[in-house]
């Protein structure tokens, strides 16, 4: 049997077909990522890889997908209208909510209901069932889904579950409870997680439906898996309940792919993409994750995700000249000339005529903005299908005195799409990237080089040096902050200053060098062009494995299905009882309490992993006891994880 792994990145959607027995790569393919409709790029890359591999549809046993769709939707503020029911919170402002406006969280309406539990899992106040009924009735016609979050629901989920049952009796809209997605304290983070999850369910649902439809048309009946932010897989049924867990799935897939391709247990994985360079660390075979939860678009969630650093330097970073005449790369992302020329066939003419290599165009978001007559004229001018130079825009709107200011404001708000010279263009000129219009790239590079009084060849070398320098510096900072702690920020900037000097070699005759203890594995199409130099600067080995350009697609396919459940056993001093949470299962001795917890943990995790599509399930138990001298046992935190390979049994039609 064979598996298809697909990863949608910032610019490209990569696909790979592997033999599931020996993990041999049979074929790989690349298609542009289609932001308007992610499924188009996914299906296109799927078709390409199927064609290249010549593998018949009935031999495909698994399809797995890492997509930034959820992340993008949250950043862009898209999603369904959500009714939020909070239980037992006396002060709404503490969870970032103002009852009158409810604008702080992306929810349509909020109801605050009396109820909730205490830290001991005992009811703090009885649930106001009448209040729930009233709130649901009120929200029902206006919302697409519900989020339910109660005080200490991780200690006792009873009230959240009651509300969920009550809503399910009145409608079939999705209901997400805080305790279902997070096992730790923090009602604010659990509420954010539940709300965002409820919001993006329809978006993930649409994607799955389209991809599933395409698979069916091609005669593929294999299960469809989605990659989670921690790199584990889940099938469609579970992904529809836990859509939020797909955030950070791109970086997760690339670090897992990198670790797999390098066959190393201690390695730094660098994925050089179009927009960003993602840096993550593998230690003793374990991918570093952020246990407290990923932050997305300023929202602190409780979603466990790979700890990846995104540096705003990639293939599509803008190459530009600052006011002092210095050459700069990034962090802004622009559309490479080589690709823009394909979308806008008159671009080369415009470059020749204007002598400029930078153009502006309205982003999709801007075309929707409704404003005053002035703003509408501005939008009309930039959003004609053709790109325009900034000077051209100023000429056309010469009677508008604030055009500079307006441009700056809209540009900073991300409403302006830019076209310009990028490392991707320079790679085209060098013949390293054959997908776009090489001529447009060359015209832009020559114009910019001329401005600096250098040749295009020299420009290439200088841009490369800047990229390598930035990536190296960021990596040294990360490795340093991973182990060092600073008493103040001045100390920290001093250390970063030293690292900067070391990396740039700017210490005169003094030579200080940095050595990275683990090798760097390069993932992503241009990895072989940067990573060897970065590794050399850091006196370590660069691993550029075969198939590195589809490393994330490989990572999407090789993950396991996993499910973790969390428990707490607490000794209550007044009674000397041992109480197991969530719930309130009371035992007089510790050992039976532990036995009960492990049994329940295995049952719950097994059922969840099986539902998420796992086969051959194994368990991992993590137990942390708190014992204080003279007092003895205080509590125990127990995590049970069930892990298994994805089952290859056909999905339900």
């Amino acid at each position: 049997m064979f598996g298809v792994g697909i990863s949608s990145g910032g610019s490209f959607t990569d696909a790979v077909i592997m033999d599931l027995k020996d993990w041999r790569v049979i074929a790989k393919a690349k298609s542009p990522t289609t932001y308007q409709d992610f499924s188009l790029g996914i299906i296109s890359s799927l078709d390409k890889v199927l064609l290249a591999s010549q593998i018949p549809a009935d031999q495909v046993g698994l399809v797995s997908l890492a997509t930034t769709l959820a992340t993008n939707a949250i950043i862009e503020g898209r999603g369904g209208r959500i009714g939020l029911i909070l239980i037992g919170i006396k002060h709404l402002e503490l969870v970032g909510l103002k009852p009158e406006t409810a604008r702080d969280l992306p929810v349509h309406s909020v109801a605050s209901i009396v109820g909730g539990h205490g830290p001991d899992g005992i009811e703090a106040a009885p649930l106001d069932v009448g209040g729930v009924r009233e709130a649901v009735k009120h929200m029902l016609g206006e919302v697409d889904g519900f989020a339910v979050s109660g005080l200490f629901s991780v200690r006792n989920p009873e009230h959240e579950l009651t509300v969920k049952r009550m809503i399910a009796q009145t409608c079939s809209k999705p209901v997400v409870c805080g305790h279902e997605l997070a096992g730790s304290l923090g009602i604010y983070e659990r509420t954010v997680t539940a709300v965002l999850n409820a919001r993006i369910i329809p978006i993930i649902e649409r994607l799955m439906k389209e991809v599933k439809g395409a698979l069916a048309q091609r005669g593929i009946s294999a299960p469809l898996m989605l990659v989670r932010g921690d790199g584990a897989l889940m099938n469609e049924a579970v992904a529809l309940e836990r859509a939020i867990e797909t955030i950070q799935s791109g970086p997760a897939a690339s670090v897992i792919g990198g670790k797999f391709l390098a066959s190393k247990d201690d390695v730094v994985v660098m994925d050089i993409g179009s927009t960003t360079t993602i840096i993550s660390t593998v230690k003793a075979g374990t991918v570093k994750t952020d246990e407290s939860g990923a932050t997305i678009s300023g929202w602190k969630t409780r979603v466990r995700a790979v700890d990846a650093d995104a540096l705003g330097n990639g293939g599509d970073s803008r190459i530009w000249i600052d006011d002092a005449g210095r050459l700069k790369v990034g962090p802004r992302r622009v559309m490479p000339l080589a690709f823009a020329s394909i979308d806008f066939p008159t671009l080369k003419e415009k470059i020749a005529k204007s002598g400029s290599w930078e153009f502006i165009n309205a982003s999709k978001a801007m075309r929707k903005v409704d404003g005053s007559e002035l703003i509408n004229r501005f939008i009309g001018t930039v959003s004609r299908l053709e790109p325009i130079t900034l000077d051209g825009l100023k000429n056309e709107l010469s009677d508008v005195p604030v055009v500079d200011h307006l441009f700056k404001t809209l540009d900073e708000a991300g409403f302006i799409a830019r076209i310009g010279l990028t490392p991707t263009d320079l790679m085209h000129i060098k013949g390293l990237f054959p997908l776009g219009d090489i001529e447009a790239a060359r015209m832009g590079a020559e114009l910019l080089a001329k401005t600096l009084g250098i040749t295009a060849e020299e420009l290439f070398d200088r841009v490369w040096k800047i990229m390598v320098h930035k990536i190296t510096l960021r990596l040294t900072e990360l490795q340093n902050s991973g182990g060092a702690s600073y008493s103040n920020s001045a100390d920290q900037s001093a250390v970063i200053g030293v690292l900067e000097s070391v990396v740039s070699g700017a210490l005169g005759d003094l030579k200080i060098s940095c050595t990275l203890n683990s090798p760097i594995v390069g993932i992503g199409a241009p990895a072989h062009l940067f990573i060897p130099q970065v590794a050399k600067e850091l006196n370590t080995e660069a691993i550029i494995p075969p198939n590195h350009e589809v490393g994330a697609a490989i990572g999407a396919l090789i993950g396991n299905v996993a499910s973790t459940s969390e428990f707490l056993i607490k000794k209550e001093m007044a009674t000397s009882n041992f109480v197991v949470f969530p719930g309130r299962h009371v035992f007089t001795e510790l050992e039976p309490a532990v036995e009960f917890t492990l049994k329940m943990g295995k049952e719950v995790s097994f059922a969840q992993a099986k539902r998420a599509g796992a086969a051959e399930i194994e368990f991992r138990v993590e137990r942390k006891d708190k014992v204080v001298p003279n007092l003895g046992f205080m509590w125990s935190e127990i995590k049970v994880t069930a892990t298994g390979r994805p089952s290859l049994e056909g999905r339900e039609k």
Partner: protein
Amino acid sequence: MATKEEILAGLAKAVIDGDVDTAKKWAQAAIDSNIDAFEALTKGCQQGMKVMGDRYSAGEAYIPEIMLSADAMYTTMDMLRPHLKAKAVAPGTIVMGVIEGDVHDIGKNIVKMMLEASSVNVVDLGRDVPIAAFVDKVKEVNANAIGMSSLMTTCMFKMKDVVDMLVEQGLKPKVKVMVGGAPISEEFAKSVGADGYAPDAAEAVKVFEKLMRGA
């Protein structure tokens, strides 16, 4: 006119003796001689309380004597308070109380007094304080810290519940937690997630100050 040293020593001795009248006399002398009120409190009265605390620990003093000393100290404090410089040594508001199920509040009262002497704004919830009351009060008065004490091993575990309530409602690490009491150790304090522990009232002031400075 008595020297500064004599006044400070006099204040300390009056507190040790639990002699309210003499304490009043020395407090007035401190005010008349323009001795810094805070210095009079910390180097005078507080030193006296410390001596009493040490004697109590060594079994050389008993609770009634401590209470007499506390009376003397409160009297001088009331006189000196209006003369305290506006610049607080450890600015901030702390909500204090003896944890649910426990009524032993002498220790808590001494810490309260010391904190007040250092111009800390103390909101005292008294004794046998339900766990939810700490957090509700913190929200109500927008406090910077919670101070809890317990003398009973069966009750001290409730401190963990208070910390859990802060974590659950997103109030930690903004609100600092300090704990104390006879059975409490530094290790216990750490294990329940407290930010500070003090073995005595004088130390409690230092811990509070450290926590407020974010050190």
